[in-house]
Structures are given as structure tokens and as C-alpha cells.
């Protein structure tokens, strides 16, 4: 994975930059000692590391604005950072860049139950947004598995999703407004407590722009009242084809579960050994969850179980207690952890049309044999967002490269069948060089033209999202 060479002029002006930043930032907000900047050398994609020139941890929008103004003035690249859990290398710094991290900006600014929104500083973690309204019966719907750690800032930048997005949507569907600082320090307000922001849909554009258009410091988020209850059912099948058919039939029947999760045999076995959720040993396992009052849940599960029975399941088990529901979900939620116990793994994130599920699983199986690397599958089946986990040995010479190669092949397969490279983790550096498999040059050109408008000098997170060769002329012209 290539990153652009650091700009020597910037490295040479480090002390001048630090002086200007120190002139208005409190001591604890400016980190530049190499022993401390190392903590910021990577995000969740730990295979790639590089400490930044400096790290700024502002406490306010005004401090973000002033920092950006100075960096813009001096031509210093800026890498925005939330909690650093990105799996795509979105928050990976370069040697000549300043990280602006929002980790100290965690306040709840306004909670309004009548109008069903909460306004927070974006350094707040996803789970603690729900935490702030939970006692009053409300929640914030998008629930990435990393929700304990990841920040709203990163959620917005990556348009993150979660297990329950089949019903509630991903971040972009739950974001009502932002305060965003442009690279030149201009503070903008977009949207707010009303629906459908005015003018062109800049809010929709910013969500998922991977920190390349501005730094988001505050966000207005939609909150909902918690459902009265929820209950999952476990369905096991002897073939993934039949499981795929069952998913499709459930969707067609007009029931809208909050989640339909899928695990294959390798994943079931690893998870079972780790969490003991009581999963059956079968080829394909579905967890389908519905919400409502007890009677409503019964009504929906009846329909779902009728459909499941028509496909001859090897296991069909409705959770009968709160405890059992928790155990069922614990298995699924600890799948990544379980795989991590037995191996190093790389987690892919392509999305496919759900009807292509059986074909894609079959092909992944074949490719896994070709490459001699095991692949376990666990994913959001309702929306086709796959998470193949490729197992490899980081200590073995060449294994990482082989794994990356197989990963790229699987993602190309996703695109081939009508899907995309990434459903929720983002492009970052990881999938940057695959972008031309999904898009033609003019499609990328117009996306880069959008960045030109927000960040004419290409200083914000410049080496991400677009293949380096495609963004070359822009980044170099900007220097």
C-alpha cells in the first residue's frame, strides 16, 4: 500500500507550525512528542502505521476552526480522527500531516424528546448517545458492532451501519444536521431539528465523505422510542442456497425484521467454541429478530417460522427468554472476537444483491481453496452486506499479501454480480486502488470535483478514497 512521500518543506517548518498552534491551544491539546504521537500512528487497520507530525485535540469548534485555518495557510495536510476504529485505514496519518481528533469533544448539547432529536459534539461515542437518552426510553438507532468505542464523528464520515439497519437505516438516514468546519476554517451549519435540509442535500453528501470535505464537530441525530420488546429466532439450514431463499421469502412476505444475520459453518464453529451460544452445527445459520409487544412478536414470528419450515430447516428455535435472546446475540456479536482468537483475519465488507448470495458464497468457497486461505462468512443477510473474514498468519512471510490479493478478488466478485466494494466500512486506503473496478474514470472525476469545491488545496485526508494515480495531479498541484 503506497502513501504519498512526505513534503520536505512541511517537515522543515514543523517548529514554526507548532509555535502557531501553541499560541492559542492549551498545552494538553497539542501533542508532538514522538513517544506520544505514536498512539495515533494507525486506526483499526493495524497493518499500516505512520506517526503524524502532530496531533491536535481541540475542545471546541472554534479551536478546530483556528487549527484548520493555520494548516490551510501553511499547506499542511490534516487527517480528521474520531476514535480510530476505522477498518479501512481512513484515519491513517502521513508523516507530514496533523491529526485533528475530536476525542475531547463529547458533550450532549441538547436533548429534545418532543421533537425527537439529540445534539452532541461528535467525539461522543455511539453507545453513549443512546446512553444519554436510554433512561427516558429512547435510543439512537445505528449500532455498529464497534459502538462502545467508535465516535459519532467517524460514524458520519463512514456512514456506518449496524445489525439493526435493515429496519432503521444507516447513519445518513438518522442524521438531521451538522456543524462542519471547512479546511479554510469557515464554520458551516447544515440542517438542524427540521427534516430535509434546505438547498442541495449537502448533509447527504458529507455523510460518508471520509473526512475529506470538512471536520464535523457537532451533530443533530434522530432518536426514537425503544420498542416494547424484541425476540430472535434461530434457523439452521443444510445449504446456504436454501438459507438465501428463505431470506428472500421472508422479505417478500412483507414482514420487516429489524435484523437478518447469517453465519456459515466455519464461523458457527469458531463462535460456538468461544461463546457457547448453543448454535447448531450446520451449513448456514440465520438469526432473525423482530420487535414489538409480545403479541406482535408472536404474530410476526409465526409468519417467519411458517416460511422457514417450508424450506426444511435442520434447526428452528424461537428464543423463549430474555436470557436466551442475549445468548443468541452474544454468539453473533462475538464472531469477530472468536475468529481473532484462532487467527489473524482480514474483514471484508462488500455488498451484493441478496439474490446473488448462494452464487457468491459458492465462489468464495472455491477461491478460498485456490488461495489456500480459510474464509468464514458472517454478515447482514437482509441487505446483502457481506463480511467475509479471511484467515491468515501475520507472522508467515507473504501471507498478508496473499490475503490482500484474495480480498481484492472477492470484492471484485461483489462488484461483478451488481454489488459494491464496501457497504459500511468505507474505502479509506484499503479499497482506494480498487475504485476503478466499480467506477469509470468520469464517475471518479466528478467525485473529485466535489472535493475541489470543499477543499481546493486537497489538504483534508488527501491520499484516501481515490486511487493515488487518479488524484495525483490534484494533490501535486495543491502542494
Amino acid at each position, binding site marked *: 500500500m503506497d502513501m504519498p512521500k512526505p513534503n520536505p518543506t512541511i517537515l522543515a517548518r514543523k517548529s514554526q507550525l507548532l509555535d502557531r498552534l501553541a499560541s492559542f491551544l492549551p498545552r494538553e491539546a497539542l501533542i508532538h512528542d514522538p513517544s506520544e504521537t505514536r498512539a495515533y500512528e494507525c486506526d483499526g487497520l493495524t497493518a499500516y502505521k505512520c506517526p503524524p507530525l502532530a496531533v491536535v485535540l481541540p475542545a471546541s469548534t472554534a479551536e478546530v476552526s483556528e487549527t484548520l485555518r493555520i494548516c490551510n495557510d501553511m499547506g499542511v495536510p490534516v487527517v480528521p480522527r474520531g476514535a480510530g476504529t476505522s477498518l479501512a485505514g481512513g484515519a491513517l496519518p502521513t508523516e507530514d500531516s496533523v491529526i485533528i481528533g475530536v476525542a475531547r469533544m463529547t458533550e450532549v448539547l441538547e436533548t429534545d424528546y418532543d421533537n425527537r432529536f439529540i445534539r452532541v459534539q461528535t467525539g461522543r461515542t455511539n453507545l453513549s448517545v443512546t446512553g444519554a437518552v436510554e433512561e427516558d426510553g429512547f435510543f439512537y438507532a445505528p449500532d455498529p458492532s464497534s459502538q462502545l468505542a467508535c465516535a459519532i464523528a467517524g460514524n458520519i464520515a463512514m456512514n456506518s451501519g449496524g445489525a439493526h439497519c435493515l429496519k432503521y437505516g444507516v447513519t445518513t438516514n438518522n442524521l438531521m444536521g451538522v456543524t462542519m468546519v471547512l479546511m479554510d476554517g469557515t464554520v458551516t451549519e447544515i440542517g438542524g*431539528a427540521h*427534516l430535509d435540509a434546505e438547498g442541495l442535500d449537502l448533509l447527504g453528501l458529507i455523510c460518508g465523505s471520509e473526512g475529506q470535505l470538512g471536520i464535523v464537530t457537532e451533530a443533530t441525530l434522530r432518536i426514537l422510542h425503544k420498542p416494547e420488546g424484541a425476540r430472535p429466532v434461530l434457523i439452521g439450514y443444510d445449504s446456504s442456497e436454501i438459507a438465501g431463499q428463505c431470506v428472500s421469502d421472508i422479505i417478500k412476505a412483507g414482514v420487516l425484521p429489524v435484523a437478518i444475520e447469517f453465519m456459515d459453518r466455519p464461523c458457527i464453529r469458531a463462535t460456538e467454541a468461544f461463546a457457547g451460544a448453543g448454535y447448531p452445527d450446520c451449513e448456514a445459520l440465520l438469526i432473525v429478530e423482530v420487535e414489538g409487544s409480545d403479541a406482535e412478536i408472536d404474530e410476526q414470528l409465526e409468519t417467519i417460522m411458517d416460511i422457514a419450515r417450508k424450506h426444511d430447516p435442520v434447526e428452528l428455535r424461537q428464543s423463549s427468554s430474555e436470557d436466551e435472546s442475549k445468548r443468541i446475540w452474544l454468539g453473533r456479536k462475538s464472531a469477530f472476537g472468536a475468529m481473532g482468537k484462532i487467527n489473524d483475519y482480514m474483514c471484508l465488507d462488500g455488498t451484493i444483491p441478496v439474490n446473488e448470495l448462494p452464487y457468491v458464497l459458492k465462489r468464495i468457497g472455491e477461491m478460498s481453496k485456490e488461495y489456500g486461505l480459510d474464509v468464514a462468512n458472517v454478515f447482514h443477510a437482509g441487505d446483502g452486506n457481506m463480511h467475509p473474514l479471511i484467515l491468515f498468519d501475520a507472522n508467515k512471510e507473504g501471507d498478508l499479501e496473499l490475503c490482500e490479493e484474495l480480498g481484492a478478488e472477492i470484492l471484485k466478485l461483489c462488484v461483478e454480480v451488481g454489488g459494491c466494494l464496501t457497504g459500511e466500512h468505507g474505502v479509506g486506503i484499503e479499497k482506494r486502488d480498487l475504485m476503478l473496478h466499480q467506477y469509470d474514470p468520469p464517475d471518479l472525476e466528478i467525485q473529485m470535483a466535489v472535493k475541489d469545491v470543499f477543499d481546493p488545496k486537497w489538504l483534508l485526508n488527501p491520499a484516501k478514497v481515490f486511487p493515488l494515480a487518479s488524484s495525483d495531479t490534484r494533490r501535486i498541484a495543491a502542494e
Partner: protein
Amino acid sequence: MTLPGRCPGPRSIFGTMKALAPTSEAELAEMVASASEPLRIMGGGTRPIGVPVNGQPLTTSRLTGVTLYEPGALTLVVQAGTPVEEVRKTLAAEGQRLAFEPMDHRGLLGTTGEPTIGGVFAANVSGPRRIQAGAARDFLLGVRFVDGQGQVTRNGGRVMKNVTGYDLVKLMAGSYGTLGVLTELALKVLPASHHTATITLSGLDDTTAVAALSRALGSPFEITGAAHRQTADGPQTCLRIEGFEKSVAYRAGQIQTLLADLGAAKVETDPDTNTTLWQDIRDVACFHDGEGDIWRLSVKPSDAPGIKAQVDGAEALYDWGGGLVWLRVPQNTHADTIRAAVNAAGGHATLIRGNRAGGAFQPLSPPIAALQDGLRARFDPRGILNPGLMGRAA
């Protein structure tokens, strides 16, 4: 006989100039690339909106047809000029629908013509179910469009979750043909619901009504419509519930209990009556007859009654739990009052019917206006796509 690529069309829609009517995306791209004057982009022309545009009309009405429909994957790919009615029928045959419930503007605006699916998304029109299901833009998965240079571009795809690159899909939704001409759309569709019930409270003043709607929307009972309107029988506050039969009955009961302090509620479960009721709200039927300017306000729900009260003599229809306010005022009056009130509270107001020459949309803050002008300059450097429609000339 009509010439290929030309479409006569009624004068009321196309004005005196004959519309360009490409029959393929390639032909459309060629027409845009070689255009030497501004183009007025139209679907069916049923929703003249924004500042009126002078230019050569160009209609997508001949780019029609369903390209792909996968009911089991809840996805539909369709050409932009396809009549909305055709989309509706295609989906209904599989028990599915466009969940965001877009309105039909013809009654309100006195227009004729065949509304197109491209027009729906170009204007990001969503009806009562927007509060629960999301807006039109939330159901748009992918687009193909022709930009102002005649370049064909695509963004997004046909899968439910996609964060590959920037989300230009959202940007194109609601851009009113000022960034590009949509040619093909991939949509997420949803199952239609089996049963509907509407709980109606009578005689509430606006403030009490919006508070009641908020209380219901803040409950776990999944309201899919929340409106307050004036009728010949006085004010009515309506809450819609949809789903399976037992569940609908249960939730209707819970809502009645929740709002029991506000007087006896009436519960309507007849399908046809419900359809008509919510269509009337969706299409603002109460303002179809008679004169007056029509404004559409998007505000924080609890601000809505106060804003309405500042506009002397205005009549109001509240949808989206109060967050969407339709106001009728005498012709050419109150524009400044409405803009100022919305500006102070936060939100935006659009003049839908009336003299729109001075600007139809809420003026934007200078940094946002600069970003939007910048985007238009990139997507349409010659400034030929609906120039000035959204308020600032390119």
C-alpha cells in the same frame, strides 16, 4: 406524425417551444453536449417549482421502462421518464410500494401531464410516511445522469448498503435538475402494509394538537402518519398506524389510551376511507380550490404553531407531526413575515404556488450558498441546466 426526438405536448406544459425528447441516454447526452442555450429540464412537467426557467424544454418522458425488478431484494431499476403510475402498478402487482409516499402536485398547482419517477426524485418529494419510513432520497440507491457537459456518470448502485466513494445519489435527489439530468434510478422499495387504522381527535387547537402528535410519535407504537387539519366539522388531529391486523388493533388501542385526556377518539379502519384521507393530506387537497399563495415549511414540530400564529390570517395544514406546514395566504402577501419567522426558528420555507420570480426557496447562508454555487459550477460549468431555478444563477 411527430419528428423523432421532438414531442408536441400540450402548450400548458411545454410553453410555445417544442420540447427536446431524447429516446436514449446517449441521445440525451448528445443534446446536452451540443446545447448552446439554457435547457429547461422536465419529466412530466406537473411540478413547476422554483424560479421559472427560460430555456429550451427538454423532457425525459421518452426514457421509459423498468430495467430490473427483484421483489425479493426490494429493488427496482427504472428509467427516469417512466410514469409514476406505471411504477406504482408494477410494485402493487407484488404487494410492494414506494414507502416515502410522494405527493401528486397536479391538484394544488392546476397542472396536467404524466408525473415521472425522475421528477419525484429530482424534487425529493415525500408524503406523510416520511416521518417513519424516510424521505425519497433515503430510498434512492443509485443514479445515472448526464451532467451539464453531456458526460454520462453513475453513482451508487442497486444494493441497500453502499459507502463506496462520495454519495452523489443524495446530492442528485432534490437538485431539481440543476446538477444533471437523471436518466436511470435504482430504488429501494418496501412491502405494502396489510392493514391501516387512523385515530382521529377532534377540536384541538394547533398547539395542543402538535403536542399530541409529538406524544404519539415519541411512543413505541410506530406512527406512519401524523397530521392536523381544518375540516368543515372543525379541527381534526389524525394518527395513522399500519401493519398486520392484530398489531394495528393493539397499537390503535395503546394510542387511544395514551391520548385519553384529550377527549374521545374515533378509529377508522376502512381501507378506502383511509386511502382517501391520507391522499388528501399528502396532496394538500384542502387548498386545491380557491386563490392564494401556498407555502411549504419544514420546521421543528413544536415551533410550527407559533410560526403559523405570526402569519396573520393564514390557513394551515400540519403534516409530519407538525414538522411540515402548508400555509395558504392571500396572493403576494406575508412572504417577508414567513421567511423571517422560519429564519428565526430554524428550518426553511418554499413558495410552491404564487409569484416565484423573486425566489422560491429559503435564502441560504453565505458559506452554504458558496458551496452550492461551487458544485453547480463543477457539474454544469456552462450554467445551462435549469439556470437560476434554485435561487442563485450559476
